[in-house]
């Protein structure tokens, strides 16, 4: 059976849905994890701060592919039933949380020290300070680099193909074998990633320009 050009495009676009789904879930998971880690990262406890720093170093100092493999081959050892989907979601969420906490910490640090002191003098508990005073101010600053990281995350989902998750890249590989047209297919795959990422990239850039330098 022959694939027409339209067949190729259609199948790749359908596969792109899974890329977007994985990106969204990993971003949500990473965001939640990142928030939790952020609280620890800026806390007064030195051991909490060090623990998070180690976590960040581990994820930023090792290949994402290895992180994926460790989750994929490691979780079953703990007794969990692991599909490529679950492993990719968990690994990418952990990966995202490590990067997001660093990005957000930078923004929290940029909030003047005086804000902490003033809110403390009002008798606010640590978590309340964060919630009512610090985070809202940090929030505006976080959007451009966070969107920038989202682009990174979408690109990173391509590695999930290696553990068998049927997203855009893997579908491209499978179709290359069925049709033997690698040039056209990988060009299309690249184009679709570009179409997903470029809008986010330019949105982040325009936000950054509007906010001025942090």
């Amino acid at each position: 059976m022959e694939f027409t050009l339209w067949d190729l495009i259609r199948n790749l676009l359908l596969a792109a849905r899974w890329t977007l789904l994985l990106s969204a879930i990993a971003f949500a998971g990473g965001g939640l994890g990142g928030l939790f880690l952020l609280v620890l990262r800026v806390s007064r406890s030195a051991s909490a701060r060090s623990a998070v720093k180690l976590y960040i170093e581990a994820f930023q100092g090792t290949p994402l592919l290895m992180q994926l493999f460790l989750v994929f081959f490691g979780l079953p050892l703990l007794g969990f039933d692991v599909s490529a989907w679950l492993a990719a979601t968990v690994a990418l969420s952990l990966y995202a949380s490590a990067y997001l906490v660093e990005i957000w910490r930078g923004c929290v640090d940029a909030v003047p020290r005086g804000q902490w002191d003033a809110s403390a003098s009002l008798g606010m508990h640590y978590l309340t300070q964060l919630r009512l005073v610090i985070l809202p101010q940090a929030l505006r600053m976080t959007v451009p680099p966070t969107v920038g990281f989202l682009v990174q995350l979408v690109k990173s989902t391509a590695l999930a193909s290696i553990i068998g998750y049927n997203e855009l890249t893997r579908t491209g590989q499978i179709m290359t074998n069925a049709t033997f047209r690698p040039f056209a297919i990988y060009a299309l795959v690249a184009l679709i990633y570009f179409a997903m990422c470029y809008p986010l990239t330019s949105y982040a850039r325009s936000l950054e320009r509007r906010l001025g330098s942090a």
Partner: protein
Amino acid sequence: MKVLASRRFPRLPGLLLALAILVAGGSARADELDDIAKAGVLKVGIFEDFPPFSSAGPDMKSQGYDIDAANLLAKALNVKPEFVGVTGQNRIPFLTEHKVDILLSVGKSAEREKIIDFTDAYAPYYIAVMGPKSVAVSGPADLKDKTIAVNRGTLEDTSVTDVAPPGADIKRFSEYNGVISAFLSGQVQLMVVGNDVGATILAKHPAIEPEQKFKLMNSPDHIGLNKNQPRLQQKLNETIALMKKDGSLNDISKKWLLLPLPGDL
């Protein structure tokens, strides 16, 4: 308790019986044949990029020898088949972890026999070195100074690694995708795959003129299943024998391999 102690119920055999029941109950896994019947679904592990046994059609659904055979197997068990894509590396763990009930396109090896069981053969398969007409190779010695693509961890990998002379450049890819892509793009001169993969490629790209250089191993395909499932194994074997006898397996072979079933299968 008084019953067991009475003279009409000698104590020892009663205890032995109870013990036997405990042991049998404790060591027997739930019978998978029953589980499959109860679930109404037979989960079948297949490669997604392994024509003509299983590969993607234009609608991205899997098709091929294995799919047709699995449909017949499921029908014999009165259930629906559900296809799960696997890779050479993860399929045995998938089976032992019960993510799939059976695996198709599995070659027998002593190492695998330690972990899983096999049914009788249901498809002919031999591993051969393939290459374009222009590349002269007639035996293992000719592999020297050639680039050869192979799917890592498979029988193809181990068999070619065993016979390849030093100086043979073996490139291991994680899936058949990579092997076939590398061969077709000319990135490697030779590849080690099953005879039928070669036939499929020949049918689609005569320009490359691939041909079989020499056989490495004859390894007919069996169905892989978990150990200690005699009822499932027997049912599968019976179905395979029936498919051979009534010609349905031969039809599948002619449709996908373009050859009738070999007599010695």
